[in-house]
């Protein structure tokens, strides 16, 4: 934290609300009239009289109880004369002149009074006291602001009011507020962070959809575009290929079958790539022709989607990252964090509270245990160590083998189902319903297979990791990483097999090779993603309501250990996070081929919230792992960023390298999608082109690069200087503390000595006096 911040923070603290606390907060805080007896017994009490301890706001009375003329300190401390006087009496002589208050400044104006009043709320004093302060401030004479200042202040006041109004309205409209509170009450803030994350993703998808709708779907609908369906000219020309594709009659599948497969009537709608036109629309406003280049806007929307997502992720991650940076040596304060931030004040459920007690207890024990384990670790013999390492190595090998075999399995299943489907295509004389169902099954086989792996394999990972004897935190992390690999890998295999299908050699005289490529492979790819998302969503429903819900009923209804083992579930955050991020990755991957995916994801995530809420509140019992909100938040973002990169690479490869299909979509007839952008760029005015060319020359790039490096170096230097400063200040603080301790000890010793000598003197006096008395008496 920089120095400036600190000053700002201190300002409200050091205001002199001296009298404020006096009557109301007499929590036996020692003050000037502390019994000297106490002081002499315990020097610690002396310490509470130190000025540094007095600087905090109104927790206790000031030492100087006499001066009643004290006014509240204004924004800068220099104006509070009384303060400075008492503090600097020793050097009063030379500073007095400069300490004299500037009279014109001392009179407050409306604005500063208002600011004062706004600041009262930060004080830890009861309402009655605050109200008195406010009255006092209001009754004080103040200057009216003039001219522009007045305007500025008025505007600020109005803005403040407006802001709080908007905030209030917003909080009323806020989605799922009640649900969040309920979850928070039962599971604590760490789990709520997850639900906020779902909401965040939903909003993100909605924004993406809005853009896609405005710039791609809406124009297409508005211009009511009809494809040219006549084939004139060469057979393999784009026109003829399109005609062939669009005139093709789709199999008369039932409505429902088409809906879940994204085929039939759905294929030729705005939902999929194939429907979009490759033309530049022309329309007239006041009889001047205007153009709308749909293909170009199609590419741009893809770029914008990725940019917006990246921006949103970075913005959310940066917030968490900043917090982590402030935490600095994060682990450093683990015990303090546990004790002072351990309790979730939002918890309002007795059962949860009991579990929370238990969880905190466990974590405390775990931490202490961990210390011992660390020690043990160092004492581990060489033999044990090698054994453990070999074991870990073997387990990692097993994990790799499992991952690889899953991948291979997905690949073969995909190939298998495609081959079968081809047979279906060639022989369409199957009995109607059965054939359709069979076809549906094979269509969904790859997706089912992937989902199945995603379900089962993590269990084995979870078992394997227990053998490896990692620390609990690391266990969560490594299972998470393995599961991510599993998910991404099966997706990757799917992509690869898609690519193999798409990228087969094309003879010049055909529109598509019926041996491998589908007629419009982009739509085909879109359908795959469409199906994947639907399957994934369906499994969530099935698992939550048909599998886990009965399990939880079993666990609740009987108390036996077996039932507990079968039925009891904890809300395992990492797993559920992966579920949502998986959907998002699919959206990023598929949006280019099926623009409707983002809208679908918005809706599905909306329902996902309720599914997960059900899984959380009804199926699971609070676990004894404490999830910290900030830590889980940064975890979400890191995984999401992983999914983002995973989606980015194949998509951009496809855009820049793969040949678009000839018969459909906005890029038919081009070599790559990207060439559309280049073509459009070539049409721009020459100065734009010149600027872009200039930017790409060395003359611009090298200085810019150097400049960036310098900037980087500058920030790095500032950072390291601040770090150094922090350590210096910390050391100084420690030294001061020791000095203080030393002086206090000395002082108390001195007081004690003095007292003893006094007592001795008194004693001798009394002796003498009594001796005198006796003398008198004897006389």
């Amino acid at each position, binding site marked *: 934290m920089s120095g400036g911040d600190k000053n700002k923070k201190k300002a409200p603290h050091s205001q002199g609300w001296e009298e404020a606390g006096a009557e*109301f*907060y007499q929590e*036996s*805080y020692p003050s000037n009239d502390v019994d000297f007896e106490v002081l002499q017994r315990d020097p*610690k009490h002396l310490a*509470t009289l130190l000025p540094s*301890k007095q600087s*905090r*706001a109104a*927790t*206790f009375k000031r030492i100087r109880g006499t001066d009643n003329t004290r006014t509240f300190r204004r924004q800068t401390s220099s104006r509070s004369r009384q303060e400075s006087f008492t503090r600097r009496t020793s050097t009063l002589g030379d500073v007095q002149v400069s300490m004299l208050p500037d009279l014109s400044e001392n009179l407050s104006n409306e604005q500063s009074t208002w600011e004062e009043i706004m600041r009262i*709320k*930060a004080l*830890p004093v*009861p*309402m009655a006291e*605050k109200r008195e302060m*406010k009255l006092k401030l209001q009754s004080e004479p103040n200057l009216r602001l003039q001219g522009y200042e007045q305007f500025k202040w008025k505007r600020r006041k109005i803005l403040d009011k407006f802001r*709080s*109004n908007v905030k*209030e309205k917003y909080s009323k409209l806020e989605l799922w507020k009640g649900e969040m509170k309920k979850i*928070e009450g039962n599971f604590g*803030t760490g789990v709520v962070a997850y639900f906020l994350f779902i909401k965040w993703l939903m909003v993100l998808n909605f924004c993406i959809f809005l853009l896609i709708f405005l710039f791609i779907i809406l124009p297409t609908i508005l211009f009511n575009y009809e494809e040219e369906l006549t084939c004139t000219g060469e057979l393999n020309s784009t026109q003829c290929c399109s005609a062939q594709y669009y005139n093709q009659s789709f199999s008369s599948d039932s409505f429902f079958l088409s809906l879940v497969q994204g085929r039939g009537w759905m294929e030729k709608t705005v939902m999929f790539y194939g429907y979009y036109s490759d033309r530049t629309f022309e329309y007239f406003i006041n009889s001047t022709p205007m153009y709308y280049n749909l293909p170009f806007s199609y590419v741009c929307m893809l770029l914008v989607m990725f940019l917006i997502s990246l921006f949103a992720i970075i913005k959310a991650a940066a917030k968490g990252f900043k*917090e982590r940076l*402030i*935490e*600095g040596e994060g682990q450093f*304060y*683990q*015990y*303090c*964090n546990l*004790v*002072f*931030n351990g*309790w*979730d*004040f*939002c*918890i*309002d*459920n007795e059962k*949860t*509270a*009991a579990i929370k*007690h*238990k969880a*905190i207890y466990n974590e*405390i*024990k775990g931490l*202490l245990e961990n210390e011992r384990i660390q020690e043990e670790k160092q004492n581990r013999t060489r033999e044990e160590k090698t054994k453990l390492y070999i074991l870990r190595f073997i387990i990692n090998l097993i994990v790799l083998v499992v991952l690889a075999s899953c991948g291979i399995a997905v690949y073969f299943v995909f190939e298998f189902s495609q081959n079968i489907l081809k047979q279906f295509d060639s022989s369409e004389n199957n009995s109607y319903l059965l054939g359709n169902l069979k076809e549906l099954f094979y269509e969904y086989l790859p997706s089912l297979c992937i989902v199945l792996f995603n379900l089962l394999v993590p269990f084995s990972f979870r078992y394997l990791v227990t053998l490896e004897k990692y620390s609990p935190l690391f266990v969560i992390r490594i299972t998470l990483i393995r599961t991510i690999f599993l998910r991404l890998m099966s997706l990757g295999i799917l992509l690869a097999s898609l690519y193999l299908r798409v990228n087969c050699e094309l003879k010049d005289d055909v529109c598509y090779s019926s041996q491998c490529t589908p007629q419009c492979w982009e739509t085909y790819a879109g359908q795959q993603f469409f199906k994947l998302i639907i399957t994934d969503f369906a499994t969530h429903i099935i698992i939550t309501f048909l599998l886990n819900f009965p399990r939880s009923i079993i666990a609740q209804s009987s108390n036996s250990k077996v039932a507990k083992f079968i039925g009891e579930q904890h809300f395992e955050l990492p797993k559920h996070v992966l579920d949502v991020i998986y959907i998002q990755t699919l959206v990023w991957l598929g949006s280019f081929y099926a623009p409707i995916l983002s809208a679908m994801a918005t809706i599905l995530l909306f329902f996902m919230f309720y599914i997960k809420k059900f899984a959380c509140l009804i199926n699971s019992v609070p676990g004894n792992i404490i999830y910290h*909100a*900030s830590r889980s938040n940064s975890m979400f973002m890191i995984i999401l960023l992983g999914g983002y990169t995973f989606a980015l690479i194949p998509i951009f490869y496809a855009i820049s390298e793969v040949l678009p299909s000839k018969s459909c979509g906005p890029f038919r007839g081009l070599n790559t999608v990207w060439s559309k952008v280049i073509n459009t760029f070539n049409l721009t005015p020459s100065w734009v082109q010149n600027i872009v060319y200039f930017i790409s020359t060395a003359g611009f790039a090298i200085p810019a690069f150097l400049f960036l490096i310098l900037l980087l170096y500058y920030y790095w230097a500032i950072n390291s200087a601040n770090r150094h400063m922090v350590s210096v200040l*910390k050391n100084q*603080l*420690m030294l*001061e*503390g020791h000095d*203080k*301790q030393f002086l206090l000890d000395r002082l108390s010793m001195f007081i004690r000595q003095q007292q003893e000598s006094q007592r001795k003197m008194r004693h001798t006096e009394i002796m003498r006096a009594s001796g005198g008395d006796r003398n008198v008496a004897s006389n």
Partner: protein
Amino acid sequence: MGQGKSQFSEEELQDYEDLTYFTKKEVLQNSTSSAHHKFKNLAPEKVGHNKNAKLPMSKILHLTELKVNPFGERICKVFSSGNDGDCTFEDFLDMMSVFSEAAPKSVKAEHAFRIFDFDGDDMLGTSDLQQIIKKLIGDNELSKNNMQRLIQNILDEADLDDDGALSFAEFEHIINKSSDFLNVFRIRL
């Protein structure tokens, strides 16, 4: 706004808005999520005809968040203007204001410190820490040895001046470095 408004004058409401982190509506509204509604629900028969009725601590602790909170009694005591744990509506409003989302970290830290400071000596000493930990773990028992080690670890981490207790400055330092504090030290209306 209905019968709620009749209990408070416009002036009082303005005061409440200026002096807490709430808006007028959050202080007083007929919906279920207002501070006064919550307060009234704790003892409808008392607050019904006397808006500033003083509720005994046992009543305040009926608020579910406070009931299960191990520091519930401490919270009542810290915010009670009579220091005995009994709260008027204004005390309650103060409490809710500090726990609201709008209150800044420094204000929350100040109150957290006072809540944790059981013996009121303006330092979190060993006995304070011990009480905090005992309240945190509830019915579970921590062995004497472990308790000592835990306290020692806390002091090792945070007691910069080695005086065997945490001062407010040291406490604030911890709070500033912890990103969870704002999430945790909060009660929704």
